[in-house]
């Protein structure tokens, strides 16, 4: 089944079984920034935005991507210009081993799009679906709060 979609602004045809995972179809295009962690919706490493809303791509059947605009981690920066959230992750040590980072960044980007001035509690709630195996949560929360200040 061929699915017509847009990934990071580029019209893209994804081919696969309609019940296959959007995660695998995205990675097959070469966009491997989207990670597989748990494969059951617990860890958030496979997070992408569908029409601006955070979803777990491991729980999204390919057929549900028809006609939607997908943003992956590769589409968050503008060329060489990193997003404020990415800059803050660099500056405040929000990234360690890196496997959770794409999902964390996208969850934070979605939060700031809904709520430009979040409290720490808002950040904790927004990132509750994202697990960091390095357990570097405090610096991640700090990074998101700093990114919000800079926006």
């Amino acid at each position, binding site marked *: 089944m061929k699915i017509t979609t847009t990934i990071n602004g580029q019209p893209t045809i994804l081919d696969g079984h309609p019940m*296959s*995972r959007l995660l695998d179809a995205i990675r097959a295009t070469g966009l491997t920034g989207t990670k597989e962690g748990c494969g059951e919706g617990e860890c958030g490493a496979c997070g992408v935005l*569908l029409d601006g809303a955070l979803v777990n791509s491991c729980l999204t059947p390919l057929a549900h991507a028809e006609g939607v605009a997908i943003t992956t981690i590769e589409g968050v920066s503008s060329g060489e210009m990193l997003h404020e959230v990415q800059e803050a992750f660099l500056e405040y040590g929000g990234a360690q081993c890196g496997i959770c980072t794409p999902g964390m960044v996208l969850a934070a980007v*979605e939060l700031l799009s809904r709520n430009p001035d979040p409290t720490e509690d808002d950040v904790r709630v927004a990132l509750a679906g994202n697990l960091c195996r390095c357990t570097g949560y405090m610096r991640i929360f700090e990074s998101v709060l700093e990114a919000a200040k800079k926006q």
Partner: protein
Amino acid sequence: MIPLLEDYQLVVPRSLRGALDDLAQHPQARPFAGGTDLMVVLEAGHLPPGRYVSLQNCRELLGIERAREGVSIGALTTYSEIQRSPLLADNYPLLRLAALETGGIATQNRGTIGGNVANASPAADTPPVLLVYDAVLELVSASGTRRVPYVGFHRGYKKMDLQPGEIISRVLLPGVAGQGSRPAETVRASVGRAFRPGDPIRSYYRKVGTRRAQAISKVCFAGLLHVEAAAVQDVRIALGSVAPTVIRALATEDALRGQPLDATTIAAAERALLTEIAPIDDIRSNARYRGRVAANLLREFLS
């Protein structure tokens, strides 16, 4: 491990009519919405092979609207949409709390209220709230529409009052305090009298899990309480994860209704609760802990 997908068919009809016709032509086909549970089961290798019909494009199943009876919530309404609805926040605050407790943001953006009901998990987070608000389900198939009280909808573990080809189209909540409408008599499921506008209602919702975020509940408790003139005027209590289905605690309510809210009444209510729940030992908790926590939640709700 992802099973071989050749054994699965997935179609995404473009309208409700298309979906209902497809389901009528394929009585074994299974409808689904956001897929947040279906895909987990698929990846675990436990999803039965066959035809699956996505309701994703059924625009008729969207929207939160005022209705004659109270409010009508389209089955495709996501947990995120529930949280953002001022109509629900003002009139049915427990529904917003339950939606906030269901998974993380990524799940809340895709999971739907209709799916939460139809998935029929005894540990689901919104169904106890739907029970205390006396929800009515609107069911639709290619041959017509019917309405059933939610309180009798779950017939046993994963068994529902749902015919082949029939889906949940809307969840109807009758008027509660603060709203002028009254429940429609024909579909009213309530035991005891209805809450009336202006009644001082205490609302309570608490989900107990391994951690605050994301976890599946060990026990979930929803309650509405109206105490006035030193007596319980009416009360509604429902629980998740303590029986093969979510349950309305009718015996516990009976032990409270009309009584002064004192230590004797609360002790009697606790005894009643422990007779009508049937918690089990499983991967998330054990029967003894669940019974104790259910009783503790009842006490917290009443105090």
